[in-house]
């Protein structure tokens, strides 16, 4: 059995009877707070700051069965230099791909500062044996991935086998330690309640997550403002109690620049500026990038933009 790192207060093993008693969230109040934060009107210089930040924390993603080296090459170019006509536009934080494409992404990003994140552990379902998951993790790291995005076993979680969920995270972290940072995907759209989102967040953090992440992006319902607020509050509580820093990744369904700014405002007013850096925050997205570029150009020129003027990679 793996050894556990320091646990947040009130969180001892065995987990099965204890976890459901942990952390209640009032859904109405949470959603209302998220909605109020979303009314912040971010304009002019503060908007440009946010849009620039949105790119710098972006994990530009392609996770399709039809992905090929050519597709990854195009995406990587886009991520490194999103707008060839504007040298001030930064590179994204990372490129996120399936295990088979990791090597290509690593090759294309070498020397650029852009990281390669690989999904692993039978993404997106997580419905395989631990051995298969660990093998896949080892493979992507050997192929050069800087970051591993794993999924928790929701089947185990929802049937109350919390110790199993916990143990899997710990074992995957062991494989990663020292070589790659680990993001743990909770797949919040399947967890049913905010209470469960909080419990899964604390469980993942206890297991050793460097980042907790909302979604695989493969379900219709993924990141929402209330869900990320719930996760940020869990991160904040752990930091307050233990000093440990855990990052947050919002992924799935974030397509418009306006949404991206709302997510960043939420982080700003919950965890503060210290969390608004790629080391502690990521936005997982694909179509978002062009909308952000369009907004940046609109701020610069004063005109509403046309998608034809931005490359599709």
């Amino acid at each position, binding site marked *: 059995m793996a050894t556990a790192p320091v646990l947040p207060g009130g969180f001892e093993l065995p987990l099965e009877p204890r976890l459901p008693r942990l952390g*209640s*969230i*009032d859904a*109405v*109040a*949470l959603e*209302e*707070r998220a909605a109020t934060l979303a*009314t*912040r*009107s*971010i*304009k*002019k*210089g*503060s*908007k440009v*700051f*946010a849009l620039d930040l949105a790119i*710098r924390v972006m994990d530009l993603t392609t996770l399709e069965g039809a992905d090929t080296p050519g597709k990854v090459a195009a995406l990587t*170019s886009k991520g*490194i*230099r999103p707008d060839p006509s504007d*040298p001030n536009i*930064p*590179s994204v934080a990372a490129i996120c791909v399936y295990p088979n494409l990791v090597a290509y992404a690593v090759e294309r990003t070498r*020397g*650029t*500062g852009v990281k390669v994140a690989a999904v692993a552990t039978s993404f997106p379902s997580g419905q395989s044996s631990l051995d298969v998951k660990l093998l896949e993790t080892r493979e992507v790291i050997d192929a050069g991935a800087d970051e591993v995005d794993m999924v928790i076993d929701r089947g185990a979680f929802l049937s109350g086998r919390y110790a199993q969920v916990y143990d899997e995270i710990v074992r995957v972290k062991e494989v990663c330690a020292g070589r790659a940072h680990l993001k743990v995907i909770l797949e919040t759209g399947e967890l049913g309640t905010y209470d469960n989102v909080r419990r899964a967040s604390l469980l993942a953090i206890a297991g050793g997550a460097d980042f907790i992440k909302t979604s695989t992006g493969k379900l219709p319902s993924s990141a929402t403002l209330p869900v990320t607020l719930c996760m940020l*509050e869990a991160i904040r509580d752990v930091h*307050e109690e233990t000093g440990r820093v855990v990052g947050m990744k919002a992924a799935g369904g974030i397509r418009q620049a306006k949404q991206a700014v709302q997510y960043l405002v939420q982080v*700003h*007013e919950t965890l503060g*500026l210290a969390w*608004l*850096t790629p080391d502690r925050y990521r936005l997982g997205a694909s179509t978002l990038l062009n909308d952000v570029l369009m907004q940046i150009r609109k701020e610069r020129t004063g005109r509403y933009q046309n998608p034809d003027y931005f490359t599709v990679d």
Partner: protein
Amino acid sequence: MIKDKREVARRGEAAAIPTAWEYAPAPESREIVHFEDRYGLYIGGQFLEPLSNERYTTIDPAREEPLAEIAQAGKADVDRAVKAAREAYAERWSQLRPSERAKYLFRIARILQERSREFAVVESLNGGKPIRESRDVDLPLAAAHFFYYAGWADKLEYAFPNRTPRPIGVAGQIIPWNFPLLMLAWKIAPALAAGNTVVLKPAETTPLSALLFCDVVRQAELPPGVVNIVTGDGRTGAELVSHPDVDKIAFTGSTEVGKAIQRTLAGSGKRLTLELGGKAANIIFDDAPLDQAVEGIINGIYFNQGHVCCAGSRLFVEESIYETVISKLKRRMKTLRVGDPLDKNTDVGAINSKQQLDKIGSLVQSGIDEGAEIYQPPCKLPERGYWFVPTVFTNVAQSYRIAQEEIFGPVLSVLTFRTPDEAIEKANNTPYGLSAGVWTEKGSRILAMAQKLRAGVVWANTYNRFDPASPFGGYKESGFGREGGRHGLEPYVALDGS
């Protein structure tokens, strides 16, 4: 294709780590509002010059700038208004079929919805509250209040089984400055729905939304004299209260003035409802959802700068979670944005008047003098205008003035308790009884607390929630009578006989 990888690396390094993310000003435009230079009194469907010949200036408390000249209604003016209301009642309003009355009120509701942004700007300019609140809370609730009561106008027999409810006649209504338009809606809508006519006096410092409301009345083609607006200070209110031809008085304001009104009306047989002050207890148990409870505390006392009669001004924290709650509270207070009410990002606006500002300051000083510990987050206040930084006192004893007296400002007093019985005893240990808050996961405890708290409104796992369908009003010295809901009709109907 990357031309120069070193160039890219340089770009990455050059991105400086920012020290702050300042939100740029996001002001709501004032253009949509047009004020006259001077306003008369709205009597019998027209604006008339005050017979008193007296006027005063109303200002914008965030900038201390004048907005318009307002009439100070004297005895003769009030008399004229009451006569107009009486005539409209006898000749027109009480002759109308109730379903026609309903349609006038529906019109008013719809017009308020249409002109919502305009009125929201007026409320923020004249009163000091943030535009986000006037836009998202005051205006929608005001329109909804008219919509709700419109529907009762022709259904009164269902509200009072076995009775034939009839209107009372002319109602005199005096409202405060904290929710000017909303308080106007709370008064006028049920009164008109029940078939009465009204003479309403808005607060001295916030007359403008009421005066603009006269234009809504005009657009709705309400028969003249059904609604009359007389502006002025406390003297105008006193004239209205003591006018012999007013059948019913409705007052929302300070307990002190409420008692004076009650004395004035003693023996007169006139109907009276009072909605006065409060010193609500907001009680947090150890199993409460903590981050949401902290939001509830913030909303309870800093919403509308604490100018709320039902504000959760006494926080009772279960001692076992005290440190955690205070730490979360102080941290959250640091993100409150105090500033220009017209800025869409402002959370806490201006204090309504110099007078109120002084009162808050003096009570806060008493808290310090009596030995409580004060915390105020760092806050940059504008140069001009009336401002008070959100404040919290810990180490407060039940006997301190800040725990006894209504401050009506953004000042919270924190006390602790060990058992539910202790919380209840301390919560009820006040002459007031308007509202209370309870935060706990346990359903049975919510209901038990609600049962034992002597308050007219109990909020469980939420705070400062209002709805036209929900009756609002106090126990004890917080007043009597209810506004909102089916019960809100009762003060405006005569039920004698069947």
